């Protein structure tokens, strides 16, 4: 058969039933238990939250163009960065990859028809939405001005705002996380197809598994911290008030016990995406599969023991500082191992520069910078100087935005054909990837210097000497804002006018590519049996010179 006929036959098949076209009523979407539709519901939600949080950041960066503050008063600025932090952490980063790509791809990667608990999955979306709306109501009604970290006694006794609503929203989103994590862990344990042993799992699932362990074990402690915070704020009983026998630092312990593992929740799924994309676009098996798999698990475990590094100057003992500093250095080792293994995967590969790969290459650079600067703050002697300055702000944005959002876009572009059945315009994907990389560095690299020079974080106005670097950073933010709008535009465009996608546009390994694009509701017509490891691309020596 000629290629044209083949393609049009394939096209015919795709125009037929898929999970998108199966049922078309609004209720079939709002009451769906199909993991793919839930993934899209989540995708719409977190995109909205991302742009809301981003809008807050835009106003902040614009305000910081002048030393006195260009646009808003101190109080408003404080509310803005609180809003930015709360939305970005709990309503964008913590859910991001797991609830969108994870929900969609996990059963497909397992050759399964759905997750273990589809109704729990839908419930988790509703919990997320109710939590999000509740928090947004608080933020819109009058705002909260305590920073996303809610330190006591500022938050319990001195701040005027709608903290209770925001805390309630966070609690609800926490339950959403726990439900999602629980679903993934049980699914990966119980719904693997015949022949898929643990060491034949795609690495994306290893990292989702590690993420889910943290979801499930760390989030309850956040819930408790929020409950105690609300109790204290409402009743002033003295839990965190030294005048009544309480201890304000105790809140920090409870808060960071969750919030440090939370940052690993944010990055681990990104690691998983890197492994998938780098193998597909190097057309080569992953280097050091077991090391990458176990490094995810060890990061998840060690992450629970480093929270005290947020409190080196908070009044904790020197011994506590020493222990947490050592552990913080240790937790960076598995991440370094991953980077080395990824580089080794590139070695002797057959590299293509499609958009997902460009995002991943950007990830490796940005993550390395972010991770290395983490050492600066893990080190006790230097953290004393850098704590609560723009250095820390730059460090975590390099990981959370530079690395993590790049990974998210990489995964989004990689699986876009599978999810939507359409190809995105490749050239625009590449342009956006490059613009994001450039804009991001322009925004946050100056902040490392600002931090060293002493500029504190959460400052609405600053000493005039810091202005030049702030202006550069704000210009970079403008570039970044444009860069983020690009995918929004061309991906939406592709939904209407993009080329139809074949089942396996990248010629990649993985069960998700063995079914049509977009998949049917039940994913697979029959159960696959796995007979070998993942990423079994032909070895370089087995190939013709290409």
């Amino acid at each position, binding site marked *: 058969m000629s290629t044209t006929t083949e393609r049009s036959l394939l096209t015919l098949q795709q125009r037929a039933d898929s999970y998108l076209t199966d049922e078309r009523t609004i209720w079939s979407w709002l009451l769906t238990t199909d993991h793919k539709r839930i993934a899209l519901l989540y995708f719409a939600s977190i995109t909205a939250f991302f742009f809301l949080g981003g809008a807050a950041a835009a106003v902040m960066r614009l305000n910081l163009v002048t030393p006195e503050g260009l646009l808003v008063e101190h109080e408003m600025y404080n509310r803005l960065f609180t809003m930015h932090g709360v939305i970005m952490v709990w309503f964008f980063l913590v859910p991001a990859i797991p609830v969108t790509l994870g929900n969609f791809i996990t059963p497909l990667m397992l050759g399964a028809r759905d997750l273990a608990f589809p109704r729990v999955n839908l419930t988790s979306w509703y919990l997320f939405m109710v939590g999000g709306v509740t928090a947004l109501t608080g933020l819109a009604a009058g705002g909260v001005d305590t920073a996303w970290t809610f330190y006591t006694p500022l938050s319990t006794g001195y701040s005027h705002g709608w903290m209770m609503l925001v805390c309630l929203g966070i609690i609800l989103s926490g339950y959403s996380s726990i439900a999602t994590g629980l679903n993934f862990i049980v699914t990966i344990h119980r719904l693997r197809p015949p022949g898929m042993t643990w060491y034949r799992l795609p690495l994306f699932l290893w990292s989702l598994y590690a993420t889910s362990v943290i979801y499930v074990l760390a989030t309850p402690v956040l819930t408790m911290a929020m409950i105690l915070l609300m109790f204290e704020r409402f009743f002033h009983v003295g839990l965190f008030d030294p005048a009544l026998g309480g201890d304000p630092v105790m809140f920090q312990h409870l808060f960071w016990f969750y919030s440090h593992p939370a940052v690993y929740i944010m990055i681990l799924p990104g690691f998983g995406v890197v492994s998938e994309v780098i193998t597909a676009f190097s057309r080569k098996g992953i280097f050091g599969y077991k090391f990458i798999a176990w490094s995810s698990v060890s990061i998840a475990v060690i992450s629970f023991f480093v929270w005290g590094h947020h409190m080196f100057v908070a009044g904790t003992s020197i011994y506590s500082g020493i222990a947490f500093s050592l552990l913080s250095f240790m937790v960076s080792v598995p991440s370094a191992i991953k980077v080395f293994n990824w580089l080794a995967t590139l070695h002797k590969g057959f590299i293509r520069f499609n958009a997902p790969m460009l995002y991943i290459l950007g990830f490796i650079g940005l993550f390395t910078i972010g991770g290395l600067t983490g050492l600066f703050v893990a080190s006790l002697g*230097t953290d004393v100087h850098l704590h609560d300055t723009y250095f820390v702000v730059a460090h975590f944005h390099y990981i959370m935005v530079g690395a993590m959002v790049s990974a998210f876009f990489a995964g989004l572009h990689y699986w876009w054909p599978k999810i939507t059945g359409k190809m995105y315009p490749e050239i625009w994907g590449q342009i956006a990837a490059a613009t994001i990389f450039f804009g991001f560095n322009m925004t946050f690299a100056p902040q490392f210097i600002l931090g060293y020079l002493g500029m504190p974080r959460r400052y609405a106005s600053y000493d005039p000497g810091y202005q030049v670097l702030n202006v550069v950073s704000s210009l970079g933010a403008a570039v970044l804002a444009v860069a983020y709008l690009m995918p929004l535009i061309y991906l939406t465009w592709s939904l209407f006018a993009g080329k139809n996608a074949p089942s396996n546009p990248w010629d990649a390994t993985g069960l998700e590519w063995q079914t049509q694009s977009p998949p049917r509701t039940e994913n697979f017509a029959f159960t696959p049996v796995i007979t070998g490891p993942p990423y079994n691309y032909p070895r370089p020596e087995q190939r013709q010179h290409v």
Partner: protein
Amino acid sequence: MIGLATASDGARETDWLLGSLVGASALVLALVMGLMFIYVIRYRHGSGLDRGSVAQKTWRIEVGWTAATLAVFFGLFIWGANLFIRINLPQDNPLTINVVGKQWMWKIEHPGGEKEINALHIPVGRNVQLLLTSEDVIHDFGLPAFRLKRDVLPGRLEAMWLHADKVGDYRVFCDQFCGTDHSAMIGTVTVMEPADYQAWLERNGASTSLVAAGQALFIRYGCAGCHQAGLSGGGGTVRAPSLNGLFGSPVPLADGTTVTADEKYIHDSILYPKLQVVASYDPVMPSFQSVIAEEDLVRIVAYIKSLDPHAFAAGDRPQ
């Protein structure tokens, strides 16, 4: 563009560590980015290069780079921890200055009672101990030129040690978000020659020194009623530990341990008397939490520090 001053030896040491971290990071980044660029160009699809075969036994490579990473990280940890411990070591014979943070200003008080707001004058070349506390929320006394900062907590006394070796004006920032005017809670540390510092003290002389003010408060709040600190006429029916020569001496506690009476111990005993009860005494001292403000506490602690073990006034009952 602003530059960052270096006001002390500690600052210089911190800069060394920071510089080394920058150097090491630059090396690693160059390695990673370099390899990445080389690989994606050499091994791009269509480069026509003969890839040969890929290493099968990768175990040694993995262990190798893991061990190297661990070793470097451990070395950096030791360096940083060592610096941190030395930053926090008490220094000899310090000039003790009290700092009280409140929304949104810094109130500084020198031993002689001289007060300043949002400013700190200290002599160069002298060990300085800052005793930090807060009246309301958690603040942070940040001194970039010294590469130091410490959170300032309500109801607690924290010590920070300085030794400036360069005269000049340096920034103080509040480095823990504390509310609306957090970014306005800034000040200046002025390091002066000792003679200039003396002159400044005289110009800003207080009517009473901290110790004298503290003595007045000691009587006013009824401490003298039980603690008979060397004042004639101070008699009471309650048996309470003597405070003469208390500062710096070991104190046996009811739970069998012994602590050294430093400023923190004295400060906390006034606010939380039941936490560390002295051996053989009943826990009957009332708490003065919410009764005595932090500023007054500073004076009382200064007074108690000044009590000489050999100063007994006539008429005191022996302890």
